[in-house]
């Protein structure tokens, strides 16, 4: 067990997992002394019938305070304020968030306003502004996933000033995270692939970056193992409930890992690609992961090598000599991307140049790479990356990831 000089691990969320996990919500709300929850979700989730599944599971034991089913992406500030208003108006005493990262972030932000009895969300931004527990919040993720159900961060978009406002506090963590396979059973193959690769990236970066600690390491390895064994199976057989539950668990474990051990270069570059070009987060993570690992390998190659067993399985691990395991991990991730590309009929991008919008336009033109490289320097996750990178280094990694050329170590890029 590598013990860092100092570390903190904090995950206060109660995890409730299983086939009938949703049906436990009434008892869980009762234990939290709540009886009139506000349910919030987005149109996609409502349209897929998942909201109905949740409401049906609540049964007659809970009288829903209200339902808001049109939460847009990126948790815009006006929507947060409006939803908080509905919460107060309907006399709600708890929140149930059914959806992905944006919905859960919106719920966390709404919870701040209604618990602190304020209309000014910005006064609680940053770290340390909240000093007491908030109202009950239950998170039901519908992707596997961002891990937002276990993180202590929420990011709200201020469309008027074109900025994103972060909120960091252990009190932001939901009280309960419900992992029910029904929530991801109908997820299309390409979204399953993208979100699982997002979870894989969380786990890999949590294990290999500087803020790693023993408990986050254990969660990260378990997450990688679950994704390795179940992802391709689930893509081939979307109705595999066991596989869906496993992937959802993997996403939560990866969330617990990265929430405490942070992430690195993949997220710095990936956030910037998403911010500049609007590319989907999961797709960026999947593409950039092997290239960032290659860049960092001269610093943390020995850690990357330890991922080979959960990532590729015993058969590959045992025949790979120790000095080749780092490279084998990078190659296996690339192979995984290739397999996902094939299984999703090309919708899962292997390289940045393969990311297209719904109209078939390339989302990440090569000309935008310098801007992306510059923006990536302002991402906080840069501090946790084992190797420093400047604009030039970022540019080289992005070019390799755009083209799909062989990933190279930082020491070789100079």
């Amino acid at each position, binding site marked *: 067990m590598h013990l*860092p*000089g*100092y*570390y*903190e691990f904090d995950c206060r969320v109660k995890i409730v997992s299983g086939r009938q996990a949703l049906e436990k919500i009434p008892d869980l709300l009762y234990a939290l002394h709540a009886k009139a929850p506000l349910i919030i979700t987005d149109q996609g989730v409502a349209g897929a019938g998942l909201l109905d599944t949740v409401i049906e599971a609540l049964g007659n034991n809970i009288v829903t305070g209200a339902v808001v089913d049109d939460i847009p992406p990126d948790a815009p500030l006006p929507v947060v304020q409006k939803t908080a208003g509905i919460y107060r108006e309907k006399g709600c005493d708890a929140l149930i968030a059914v959806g992905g990262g944006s919905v859960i972030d919106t719920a966390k932000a709404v919870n701040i306003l209604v618990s602190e009895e304020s209309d000014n969300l910005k006064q609680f*931004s*940053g*770290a*340390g502004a909240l000093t007491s527990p908030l109202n009950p919040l239950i998170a039901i993720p519908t992707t596997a996933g961002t891990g937002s159900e276990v993180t202590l961060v929420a990011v709200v978009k201020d469309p008027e000033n074109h*900025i994103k406002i*972060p909120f960091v506090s252990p009190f932001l963590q939901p009280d309960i995270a419900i992992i029910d396979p029904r929530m991801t059973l109908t997820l299309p193959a390409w979204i399953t692939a993208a979100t699982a690769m997002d979870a894989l990236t969380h786990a890999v970066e949590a294990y290999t970056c*500087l*803020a790693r600690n023993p408990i986050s390491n254990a969660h990260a390895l378990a997450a990688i193992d679950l994704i390795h064994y179940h992802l391709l199976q689930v893509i081939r057989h979307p109705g595999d409930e066991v596989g869906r539950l496993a992937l959802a668990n993997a996403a939560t474990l990866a969330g617990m890992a990265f929430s405490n051990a*942070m992430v690195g270069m993949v997220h710095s570059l990936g956030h910037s690609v998403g911010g500049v070009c609007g590319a989907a987060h999961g797709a960026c993570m999947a593409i950039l992961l092997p290239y960032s690992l290659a860049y960092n390998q001269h610093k943390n190659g020995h850690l990357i090598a330890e991922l080979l067993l959960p990532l590729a399985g015993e058969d590959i691990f045992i025949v790979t000599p120790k000095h080749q395991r780092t490279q084998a991990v990078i190659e296996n991730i690339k192979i995984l991307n290739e397999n996902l590309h094939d299984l999703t009929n090309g919708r899962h991008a292997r390289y940045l140049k393969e990311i297209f919008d719904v109209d078939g336009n390339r989302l990440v033109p090569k000309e935008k790479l310098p801007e992306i490289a510059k*923006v990536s*320097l*302002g*991402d*906080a996750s*840069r*501090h*946790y990356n084992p*190797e*420093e990178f400047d604009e030039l280094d970022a540019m080289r990694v992005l070019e390799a990831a755009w083209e799909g050329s062989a990933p190279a170590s930082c020491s070789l890029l100079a």
Partner: protein
Amino acid sequence: MHLLLKKKKKPSREPYREISSGSKPLKRIYLSIILWFMGRAIQAAARVDKTVKAEFDALPDGFTFSLGVFPDGPCMVLGKNIRGRVKSLGRRGLEQPVDVRITIKNIEAAILLFTFQESTAISTIRDRLVVDGDLSQACAVIRILDIVEVYLMPKIIARMAVKRYPTWPMTRKMIGRIRIYFRAVLGY
């Protein structure tokens, strides 16, 4: 003889008692001096070093940031006025809200940081700091701090303080170091 060997009787203590928060005057003084000098060094570096100047140019006019010890320990506050000049504001800079606030959680963490037992990166990773404000601006502040540390300290120490020691030509480092020290001492 037995009087000399007789043990001193410890004064009896109440089992329930208050222990007031004391102080660590020497450490406080050391940090005050370091932060005061660092503030001036950053102010000087903004005029001497083109990278630091470029970082500040990218920040908006009126931008302020602080680096201090929780709850009310030594701190430095720097601001960029509307004419684009970077100035060390001292504690009076805290009278207005700052854009980026870096808080070191306790005085011992600050000592670890400013005796270079832990670099800025290690302190961040070890949750010894809390950063409030726009994160991209905070990243710029930390890049500025890293550059100034390279100027202020010999390589053997600066290498521990930053993640990647820059490969500058000797002239840039030595001339820059002399100019920054000179300006920092004189305060302009």
